[in-house]
Each structure stands twice: as structure tokens, then as C-alpha cells.
């Protein structure tokens, strides 16, 4: 009996040891290696995606960006690169040859305060890490009053597992946030917008869509927002107003402007389901909502082509049926 009890105790102790060992090994394996499943992922984010700064020559401002590394650990670095507009949709064309380095004419305007002390200097970012990047902008007293456009680039060079030599490419990524820098002594720079295009179809079908194309240009030296609206006055029915999306139009560029519905950018088009008569549409833009508006009016005639065609088709079909019925009666 005693022997049996002892044996049972020994068996329980052995099971206990096995269970403990299994749990330990499972835990180590699971937490030690399970995350490797996510290996080779690269993920970067930056906030805010845009900063608009107006500053007097000789003054300084400190700006903070939050960057994250949502992928593998790696070496990060920060750069500032001038840009110009590319196309008409607000894309940037980076001028990497003139990146802000010691030789750049803008070298004295920008300095990085944290997490490193010079642009391009590498710092380690572990996977999942969030880091604030603080830069100081201080254009000199002799800085010419106009706009300057830059992109702050956050570059990440992820670690390659030791002993791994791939046959193929290794991908690197970088992500940008745009800096629109306006140098102005009085804070009231002159804006020079122009309507590069405001068009709508001259004649449309009553069941068609009245869609507008808007392109706004900037002849001046300062960025402005495309605050404005399209007022549609029909011959019959009530007027309609479409609000333009207040997008940035930087100097010496043209931008295609959509309309705004809540926070969504949408195509500029009339909400009327059926259009009949003459529609006078007036585009009115006021850069940044200040000053006199610039306007342009286009006229569209909506004619019920498809409705008439449908009626003619019905009438013709009816006539054919009647004719065939008549012929049938006569022959019988």
C-alpha cells in the first residue's frame, strides 16, 4: 500500500516535471520565435503630414514630428529636401541634389535638435518604436520674402538577419512630411491666383451629369488655399452651391481642384438628377478667404435628348404595331 502510494507520488512528480518542462519550452519557443513570423516587414509613419509655417526673417520656430517604426528594427535618419510641384494633383518632386546639407544655401536655416544633432545622422529605431523629431527653422535676416518648400524625409534601413545573404533586392523605405515655409515681414503676403480652367459641357442630355473641371494657378510667390465655390443657377428650379476643397496651391504651379463633401474630396458636379434648360455656373475663388473674389461663368444647355429619343422610339413602335394589326385585319 505504502509502496503504491510512493509509486503514485513518483508518477505525479514525473508528470509535474514533464508538464513544467513542456510549458517552459513552449513559452520560450512561442515568445522567442513567434514574432519572427512578422519578420521582413517594413512600416513607417509620420505625423503631421504637412506643416505650414509663416515666419519673419531672422526669427525662429521649433517644430516636432512624430515618427514610428511599425516594422523591423533598423537604422533611421532624417533629411530635409527641397521640392517643387509635380503635375497638377499636389504631388511633390524632390530635388535630392539640393538636400539640406552643410553645403546647401539653406544649411543655416534648418537644424535638428532631437533625436540626433545633424541631418543624415543615423539612429536606431526598434520595431514598434515611436520617436519625436524636433527641428528648428531659423531663416536669416536677409532671407528673401517668398515661399520655400521642403519635405522632411524619414528613412529607415531595416536590419538584415545575421548570416542571411539574399539573392535579390533588399528594400528600403522612406516617408515624407511637407513643409511649406513662407517668409514674410508683415504676415500679410500678397496672393496672386488665377483661374487656369473652369469648364463644363456646353450641351448635355437631361439625364446626364453636369461635371466641372477646375484648375487654379498661382502666379505669386506665396501659397494660398483654393477657398471658393461654384454657384449653379438654372432656368427652372433652385440654385445650387458646390464648395471647392481648400487645397494648397504653391507658387508657380497649377492645381486641379475637386469639391468637398464633409471631409471627402469629390468630383465637382451638380446634384440635380434631371437637368432641363440653361444652367449658368459661376466659379468664385477667394485665396485663403481674403480679398476680392475672382470669378468665371460658364453656360450649359441641358436638352432632353434621351427622353425625346425614348418617346420617338415608343411612338414608332406603337405605329408599327398598329400598322401590323391593320394589315392583319385587312388580310383576314
Amino acid at each position: 500500500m505504502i509502496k503504491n502510494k510512493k509509486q503514485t507520488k513518483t508518477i505525479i512528480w514525473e508528470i509535474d516535471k514533464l508538464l513544467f518542462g513542456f510549458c517552459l519550452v513552449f513559452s520560450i519557443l512561442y515568445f522567442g520565435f513567434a514574432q519572427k513570423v512578422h519578420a521582413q516587414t517594413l512600416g513607417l509613419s509620420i505625423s503631421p503630414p504637412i506643416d505650414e509655417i509663416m515666419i519673419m526673417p531672422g526669427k525662429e520656430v521649433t517644430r516636432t514630428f512624430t515618427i514610428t517604426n511599425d516594422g523591423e528594427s533598423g537604422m533611421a535618419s532624417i533629411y530635409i529636401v527641397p521640392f517643387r510641384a509635380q503635375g497638377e494633383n499636389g504631388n511633390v518632386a524632390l530635388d535630392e541634389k539640393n538636400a539640406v546639407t552643410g553645403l546647401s544655401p539653406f544649411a543655416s536655416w534648418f537644424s535638428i535638435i532631437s533625436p540626433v544633432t545633424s541631418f543624415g545622422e543615423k539612429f536606431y529605431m526598434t520595431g514598434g518604436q515611436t520617436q519625436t523629431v524636433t527641428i528648428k527653422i531659423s531663416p536669416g535676416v536677409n532671407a528673401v520674402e517668398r515661399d520655400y518648400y521642403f519635405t522632411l524625409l524619414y528613412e529607415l534601413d531595416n536590419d538584415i538577419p545575421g548570416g542571411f545573404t539574399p539573392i535579390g533586392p533588399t528594400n528600403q523605405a522612406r516617408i515624407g512630411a511637407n513643409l511649406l515655409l513662407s517668409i514674410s515681414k508683415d504676415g500679410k503676403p500678397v496672393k496672386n491666383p488665377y483661374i487656369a480652367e473652369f469648364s463644363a459641357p456646353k450641351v448635355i442630355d437631361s439625364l446626364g451629369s453636369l461635371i466641372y473641371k477646375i484648375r487654379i494657378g498661382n502666379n505669386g510667390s506665396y501659397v494660398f488655399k483654393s477657398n471658393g465655390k461654384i454657384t449653379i443657377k438654372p432656368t427652372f428650379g433652385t440654385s445650387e452651391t458646390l464648395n471647392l476643397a481648400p487645397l494648397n496651391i504653391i507658387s508657380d504651379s497649377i492645381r486641379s481642384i475637386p469639391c468637398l463633401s464633409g471631409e471627402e474630396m469629390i468630383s465637382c458636379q451638380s446634384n440635380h438628377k434631371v437637368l432641363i434648360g440653361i444652367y449658368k455656373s459661376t466659379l468664385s475663388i477667394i485665396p485663403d478667404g481674403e480679398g476680392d473674389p475672382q470669378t468665371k461663368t460658364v453656360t450649359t444647355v441641358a436638352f432632353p435628348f434621351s427622353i425625346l429619343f425614348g418617346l420617338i422610339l415608343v411612338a414608332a413602335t406603337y405605329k408599327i404595331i398598329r400598322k401590323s394589326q391593320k394589315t392583319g385585319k385587312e388580310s383576314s
Partner: protein
Amino acid sequence: MRSSLVICLSIFLTLAGLTLPEVVSAQAKIISPNYIIQMPNFNSGAGIPASSGYRLDTTIGQTAAGLYSSSGYAVRSGFQYIHSIIPFSFSMSNFLINFGTLTTGIPSTLTSTLIVSAGGAGGYKVTARESTALQKTGGQSIPDTLCDALGCTESAAGVWSLATTYGFGYNMSGNDVPSDFINSTYYRHFANASQSQTDQIVMSNANVGRTRTATITYKINVSAVQPAGSYQNKILFTATPSF
């Protein structure tokens, strides 16, 4: 047995606490205030849209002008028409592409998934360029593909389906990809930085985009005369939001 389980559970939880990453989510920062106007006299409030969801309070007039002259700067962050400042993010699966052992005349393909969230930006673009052609120590390289009948460049896709066409290139499919990638047989080669070729757009959208996803397919095919070895290069993807 119970004590063993308790100890085991403790180890499990301790390891979990130590090894599981913090929940670092790009969205975590959305709690920040809306479109920030650090000094409210920057331009004016007139014409700034007041949607049902939000309104920007701005100050116009002498006081505001006075503020500018005293501080010397004014700043605003984020996009005026977007309620929250949503981070701009870019991610990619499989940043290490390893084709392994290649067989001559049999093309190999591998893919990565690209995801862009430009919720706070008006739009975005992603460009790509390679440092050099795929090279091995000693200088030999796998050429950038020119597709069948020299039908593609770094900026224009062409059909690459012949097993006798050699080189390295890529195809794009999914959201916001260039229209010249008509189907999965169309390829380009990467813009080669060592040959001063300009970065090429691989994804772009003029409108606000959340979780825009595309697949990049890398393709490689080597001839029988290609020297054996480990060929490598670096491909740099640059994601920038619209201004």
C-alpha cells in the same frame, strides 16, 4: 501539479509581458487636436469651411496681426478640411527578396505588398529606384529587363513572357498603380540610380486614401552564361503625401 501550472503560467505571463510589443498604433495619435493653428491670425477665417462635423475658429484683425509681429511666426499643421491629423504611413511586406537558387531559362517571381494610408493628406505618391542592377562581388550583374522585343523601360511597361528574355524587373497590381501595367505579363525595370534614371511612380492617388494596397511582383530570369553567385542591390521606396 497545481503549483507547477501556477509557475508555468507565471513564466508565460512574464514572457508575454516582456516580449509582446506595445500596442504602437499609428491611429493612437488621432486624439491630437484637429487642424492646429498655433497662432490663429494666419490668414483669416473667412471662407474656411464649417462643415457639420467641425469648425475652425480663427481670429482676424489687429490683435492677430499684433500676435504675428510679436512672436514672429505662425504655424498650422495638418489639412484644413480633415477633422483629425492622421499620420501618413507606408508599409511593405517582405523587404528582403530572396530568389534562392535560380535555374537558367526558368523565370522566378516573388511578391511584396505595399500599403499606404494617406488619411490626413490630400493624396500621395510612392516612387521607387534601385541603387544599381543586381550585382555580385566582382562586378558581374543581372541586367535590368528590357522585356520581350525591347518593349519596356523604367517608365513604360511592356510584355515579358518569353523564357528567352532575361533580366530583372517588376509588375504592379492593385490600388493606384500606373496604368501601363495592363496585366500580370507587363513589366518594367526599376529606375537605376547609378545610371541617373529618375525615380518612377509605382503608386499614386490624388484623393484621400486609406489602406490603399498594391502588390509588386519581382521577376528574374537568367541565361545559361550568367555567372553563378549572390546578386544583390537595394531598392528605395519613397512615399510622400500631397501638399
